[in-house]
């Protein structure tokens, strides 16, 4: 998350808003899982409103009975 903040600071990105759509896939293999979900990202870059449509791939790990996020990536379509 700190890396994302550094990226946002560098590119003067502010006011990020994530809008999720219906997940494309959910896969579980033991205590590992990942969810691919379409994502619309609204943000401002240097004060200019922008919109990015893409996919978020969220990688999760199961710790006992709780799923926790290990990493996520966003790919613009």
């Amino acid at each position: 998350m700190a890396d994302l903040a550094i990226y946002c600071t560098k590119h003067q990105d502010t006011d990020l808003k994530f809008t999720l759509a219906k997940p494309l896939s959910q896969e579980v293999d033991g205590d590992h899982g990942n969810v691919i979900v379409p994502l619309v990202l609204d943000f401002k870059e240097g004060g200019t409103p922008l919109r990015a449509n893409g996919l978020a791939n969220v990688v999760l790990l199961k710790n006992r009975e709780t799923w926790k996020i290990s990493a996520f990536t966003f790919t613009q379509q």
Partner: protein
Amino acid sequence: MIADWPSLVSYGSPQVRRACSAPQHNLPREGNYRERTRPYYRRVVTKLEGNELKRSRSVMIALVFLYGANIPGAIAQTDGSGMLSVVIMFFAEANAHNIGCGGRGDRSQIDKGAASALFVEQSVSDRRGSSMALGRNNGF
């Protein structure tokens, strides 16, 4: 003399066909093999059906236990909802707390709120970011 009823039925012997098709009262007593053996035959068949039924049920239950746990779809249905709720919660928290974009130079929003609990652990960069936000050992 008819010795083996099931085998004769399966082969369709003339004696059995005649015994089955002819009226009962026209047949001689010794030739009415079907009528004489029916109760015994029925009893045996019913018992076998019961055992077979139990056996088939046991096999079916065993198959469900053996293969049911290995169906990826079944696992995804049970565990997938938990994963998805975490993902939804994370992005909701990200929107609510402006996570990852707390403004230029503002790191105070990072690792706060419920979103921090959704992660496995803080990365090296996150720990550095937190310490910077708290003003500890950051060199600034």
